[in-house]
């Protein structure tokens, strides 16, 4: 059962990594405009040509 001593911290660390990623996304404003984000994905990044 000593394997648990490794497995549990590893699982917690991976979970915390996901949590940190979410908190970072929240902080960097990615949840500010949920409606706009839905259509923004359809815009191509066009190089300014005109």
């Amino acid at each position, binding site marked *: 059962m000593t394997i648990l001593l490794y497995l549990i911290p590893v699982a*917690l660390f991976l*979970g915390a990594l996901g949590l940190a990623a*979410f908190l970072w996304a929240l902080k960097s404003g990615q949840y*500010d*405009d949920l409606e706009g984000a*839905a*259509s923004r994905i*359809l815009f191509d990044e*066009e190089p300014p040509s*005109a």
Partner: protein
Amino acid sequence: MDGVQFCCRGCAGAFELIKGLGLGRYDERRSLTGVTQGARPEAAPVAADPSAWVVAEPDGTCRLSLMVDGLQCGACVWLIEQSLQREPGVRQARVSLSTRRLTLSWLKGAADPIALIDRVQRLGYRLVPFDPCLLQSADDGESKALLRAMAVAGFAAGNIMLLSVSVWAGHAEGMAAGTRDLFHWISALIAVPVIAYAGQPFFRSALQAIGNRRTNMDVPISLAVILAPAISLIETFRGGEHAYFDSAVTLLFFLLIGRYLDRRVRARARLAVEQLAALNATAATVVDDDGATRDLPPTSVQPGMRVLVSAGGRVPVDGVIESGASDLDLSILSGESVPVSRKAGDEVFAGAVNLTAPLRIVTRQSGAKTLLADIIGLMEAAEARRGRYVRIADRVARLYSPVVHSVALLTFLGWTLLGDMAWQPALLIAVAVLIITCPCALALAVPVVQVAASQRLMRSGILLKAGDALERLREVDYVVFDKTGTLTTGELRLLDNADPEALTIASAIAAGSRHPLARAIRRAAPRVAPKDGVREIAGSGLEFTDGAGTWRLGSHAFVGEADDGGDAQSLWLAGSDRPPVRFQFHDDFRPDGPAAIQRLRAMGCTVEICSGDRPAAVRAVATGLGIESWHGGMRPADKVAHLEQLRAAGRRVLMVGDGLNDAPALAAAQVSMAPATGTDVTQSAADIVFQGASLAAIPDVLALARTADRLMRQNLSLALVYNLAAVPLAMLGYVTPLIAALAMSSSSILVIANALRLGKMRLQ
């Protein structure tokens, strides 16, 4: 593109600009659903100097926040961002579709903010600079904090549940006590800081309630969420068998989800009110005594100052016309589509749009004292009053929480005093009672029905905005309709009996006018080439002189006809050598109006019309739809007063309206609905917004609300019965964490399954 009709010059201009920029794909991206909002009557206004709002960063970047008026869909976002990013010097241009705000940053000196704003205004959007620090909704901190708490609680709930399932399996399989204790310790390490952090919204609300000597649902929640880990910690110290960390954290996670959704709905409503206040913020052109003009923010205009309003501009202050005569579109204040003519000596109000000729106005009131500001104030006050409504869940909580607390206390005292038990195990049993009675199913019973109902309504194009709208709607026994735009489509249509030859001439003359009646003529005969040299005579009509003589298109007085007392919705065309011809217009009823009103009556509701329009016009509509009770000529405050009277008489009123003048009444009514064609503000004031032309949505929603209410009550009873069955077990000390988790989830699933039956309900 030849043969394309534009609704206004702004759209045509925008189209040219878009093509010129090579952004022609805008039209492919347009994804407008349903009916778009009416074209803004203003021509692109002159950009006010935004330098007061520009924030300069130390690295040489300048930042400016602007509100965008006229944003429709993702394509608008794309168009604005693309056209700005092509300007030299622009670092970033980002439009938020949810908040309708544009953040612009550029290199100091490399770009001119006025030119940038002008660029967007020429596309047909109006930009108003604002200070993000001064706006409540710009500070979205609370909603972000909830989301953070939710994420943290979710992370903890998942991990602790993983450990708990192992412990429960261990009970059956004979897990060693050491491993079990290790798992409890790890759970405790995760749970305690998480609860201290993520439970704060509930702790604060509970403390506030206790401070006011009241109790709400948050009091038992906070107690359970604090006591459960506390007693579990003691158990863990003692190497005990049971710990309730998972129950506490999972409960917290679910409750935070509900809290976050609720909070987002309310933030949206506030956003639109602020948008309206910003509309008021067009710069006012003040004429000094020496004849010089300068631009001032409307709030700094002092009473007595002279203000110039160009044709197409919005009136910035309340005042009296000193010189000039024009037609004014008062729809923002009265909700009526037919403009009124005003001349020197008449009163005008902030928010009105000047249609035909420049006006010089002597200011009486400005800023927060204008009629427009009054309407906003009226709406906010009415909304605050409505806060008195107590939701069914809170009413249950008021009875429920004292009972829960006394049962838990009784359990503890019973075991220690009568059962001669040590205080620790007795407390553990009391906490088990708190957890098993913790209003998890109760807290789900109502929101789950609301989610099911709002999804069912969404499929029929009906948007439920307020969480408790269905509860309030269930009791409705009185329906008040606005007339223009609600019972009718709000769009004037030429009656078919017009003489085709006269119509061709009238259409040619009317082409250049912004007057709604002239536009209706254009709609009836769009393929006529416009005439040049048409003169618009404010308050009267249009005049055109050609070789054959003078043509006049306008009011009965303008063409020399006697007033026959008919409704104002007619135009006359007179040539020099022919008798005047009359064009009559009609504001069409929405389809299904009579049927919808029949159904409302069958459901036991009284139907009434309250309109700001002339009484004669209101009577005509009332007779046409078979409604006996009607009121005409009502101002926004009159409507609110009327609704308050009805409320005092014990009626539960549903208000249906579309105009800005209805917004206070919508907020004052027990519950309110607005069509999706209404103004932004009306839609935000309303609890329910329905799309499409049919009024059948109103009885449909009412029927669904009554079904939903039945389901809520069933769910509440189910949850209560469940708790009643489980409480004796818990009091006797038979409830382990496993049983608590099973009881909590099975009762929740039962309640959710019951609510989902709503999705199958058929609307007529």
